[in-house]
C-alpha cells in the first residue's frame, strides 16, 4: 500500500493575546491510498486544525507533512496553492459552491483553473455529476439545490481535479440525518469503486460507523487509532 500522507511530530500552536493553545500536539500519522478514514473527537480537539495542516491551508508550528513524497511545509504560498489545485480535493461544511454558477459550472471551474481542455472538462463534469446522482440537476444554481444536493456537487467538484485524496471537514454537519447517510454512502461507493481516498472529520456516531479507520483526537493528541 502506498503511503500518501505522512505527518511527523506535527504541532500547531495558536497564540492568542495572553495564552497559547496547542491545537495539534505532536501528531504523527500515516495515511495510505484508498483509505476511508474518520478523524473524530470532542469539539475543540483539533480536527479542523489537523485537516487544514494536511490540506496546506495552514502552516504547522513544527513537524513535517509529506504528501506523496513531497514535503509541503517548505512550499511557498504560491506553490502550495498550485499544489492544492492539482493534488487535494476539499469538501467544506458550507460555502463550497460559487452561487452564480450552475452545478456543472462549479464542477468545471476547478478543471478550468487546472487548464484542462474544454471538451474534457465538459465530459468529466457531466460524468461526475451523474455519478453523484445529479445528472438531472446539472444546470441548477446552488440556491435551487437542497443542502444534501449541494454537498454532492461539492463531492463532484472535489473529485473533478483528480486529486490524490479528498479532505472533508464535517461534510454532513449541516445536513439532516437521511441526507448525511446518503452522502456518506455515496462517498463510500466512490472509495470502493474508484479507490478515492477520503479523510473526513465528524461528530456524528452514525457517520463514524461507516469509516474503516477512526483516528480519535483529544486536546490535539491522537488518543486512539483503530482500523475496522
Amino acid at each position, binding site marked *: 500500500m502506498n503511503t500518501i500522507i505522512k505527518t511527523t511530530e506535527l504541532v500547531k500552536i495558536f497564540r492568542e493575546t495572553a495564552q497559547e493553545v496547542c491545537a495539534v500536539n505532536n501528531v504523527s500519522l500515516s495515511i495510505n491510498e484508498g483509505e476511508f478514514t474518520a478523524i473524530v473527537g470532542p469539539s475543540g480537539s483539533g480536527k479542523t486544525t489537523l485537516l*487544514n495542516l494536511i*490540506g496546506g*491551508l*495552514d502552516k504547522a508550528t513544527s513537524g513535517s507533512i509529506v504528501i506523496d513524497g513531497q514535503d509541503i511545509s517548505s512550499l511557498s*504560498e*504560491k506553490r502550495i*496553492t*498550485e499544489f*492544492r*489545485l*492539482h493534488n*487535494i480535493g*476539499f469538501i*467544506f*461544511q*458550507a*460555502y*463550497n459552491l*460559487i*452561487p*452564480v*454558477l450552475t452545478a456543472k*459550472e462549479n464542477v*468545471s*471551474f*476547478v478543471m*478550468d*483553473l*487546472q487548464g484542462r481542455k474544454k471538451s474534457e472538462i465538459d465530459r468529466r463534469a457531466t460524468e461526475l455529476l451523474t455519478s453523484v446522482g445529479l445528472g438531472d440537476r446539472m444546470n441548477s444554481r446552488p440556491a435551487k439545490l437542497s443542502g444534501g444536493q449541494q454537498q454532492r456537487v461539492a463531492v463532484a*467538484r472535489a473529485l473533478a*481535479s483528480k486529486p490524490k485524496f479528498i479532505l472533508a471537514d464535517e461534510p454532513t454537519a449541516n445536513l439532516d440525518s437521511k441526507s448525511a447517510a446518503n452522502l456518506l454512502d455515496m462517498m463510500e461507493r466512490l472509495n470502493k469503486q474508484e479507490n478515492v481516498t477520503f479523510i473526513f472529520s465528524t461528530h456524528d456516531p452514525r457517520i463514524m460507523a461507516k469509516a474503516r479507520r477512526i483516528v480519535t483526537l483529544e486536546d490535539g493528541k491522537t488518543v486512539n487509532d483503530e482500523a475496522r
Partner: protein
Amino acid sequence: MITSLAWKNIWRNRTRSSVILGAIALGLFCGVYINSFMTGWMYTTVDDDINNHLSHIQIHDTAFSANNDISAYFPREKVEAAVGESGLVTAASYRLSLTAMLASANNAVGITAKAVFPEDEKAVSTIWQNIADTMGAYLPDDARTAIVISKKTADKLKVKLKSKIVLTFQDTNGDMQSLALRVSGIYKTANGMKDEATVYVRYSDVFPVTGLPENVFHEAALRTADLETCRQADARLKTLLPDMDVKDWGENEPALEMSLAMTEFFGVIILAIFLFALSFGIINTMLMAVLERTRELGMLGAIGMSKRRIFNMIMLETALLTFVGSLVGIIIGTALIVPSLSSGIDLTPFMGDQFEDYGFGSIIYPVLNVKMFVQIIALVIIAGILSAIYPARKALKLKPLEAMRN
C-alpha cells in the same frame, strides 16, 4: 470562464450594480455632451470670426502692423505674386485700412475703415451675408457713395439706413480728409467688439483722397480651403515674403486660438474630474462586493485559485463595470448629439444674445471628433484600472482560512 464568472458576479446585487452603472453612464454621457458642446461652441465661434472678420491669413507691411501708418503700404503685385506661387489660396481681397473718425449729427466714433473691392471682398468675408433683408445691401454698385456699418455703430451714431455720415481721416500728407457717405447696409455678426470697430467702404470712393499711389494696399486678406491648408499656406507665404508681416488667424487673434486649446483642455479636465468622483463610487461598490464574498473568496483560494487569479477576477469585475457603464454613457451621449451636429443647438431661448458682445454665437454646432473619443476612452481605461486596484488588493489580503471560519 473567469470573464463570464466576473460578469455574473457583477449581477449578484442587481440594484447596487445598476446604480453604479447608471452613475457611470450618466457621468460619461454628460462628459461627452459637455465636451462636444463646448468644443462645438468654440469651433463655431472661431469659424464665425474667420468667415466674418479674420479671414485665414492676413498680410501687412511690417511697419503698418506696428503703427497703422497710412504710408506703410505694399505694392499689390508683390503679394499677388507670392499668393500665386503658394498655390493654396482660394480667394484674396486687397484693402486699404484707415484709422478714421465716423460722425453723425448726434455722435462721433473712432473706427477702422476698410476700403475694399466689393466683389473681391465678398469672396473672402461673409459680412455681406450678415446684413438682414431690411438692412440694405453691401456696397451696391448703384449707390453714389456707400458705407456699410454695424448695428452697434448705427446705434451709437443714432443713424439709420440711408443716413448720411462723415468719415474723416488723415491722408499721406497729414492733412485731414472728410467724405460724406450714405449708409448702404447695416450688418451684425456674433462678434460685437469687432462689429463696433469696423466699417466698409468702396476703394473707389476713398482712394482719390488718400494721397496714396495706385495699386498699393495696407492689407491682404486670404482664404484657403480649410484650417489645415491654412497652416501650410501660412508657412509658405512666410518664406515667400520674409520682409512682410504674414499672420494666420491664430496669430491675428491669439486669444481665440488660445480659447480653442483651453476649451479642449478643460473638456478633458472636466471629464477627468467626473471620472475621479465616479471612481470613489466604483471603489466603494467593489469593496462591498469583495467583503460580502469573503467566505467564497476564501473557498476559491482553498481549492486552488491562485492569488493572482483572484486579483485578476476582481480587477476584471471592476473593469467590466466601468467599461460597460462608460460605453452606455458614450453611446447615449453620442446618439443625442448626432441630430444636432448639422442643425445646431440654439441658445437664444436660454441666454438671449448676451454672448455676442464677447464674440460668441448663439447657435452652437456641437463637434464630435476622433481625438475627443480617444481622450475619453483613455481616461475611462485609466479610471477603470485605478479604481480596480484597491478592491482587488483587498481581496488578496483575505486569508482563505480566516475567511472561511464561521
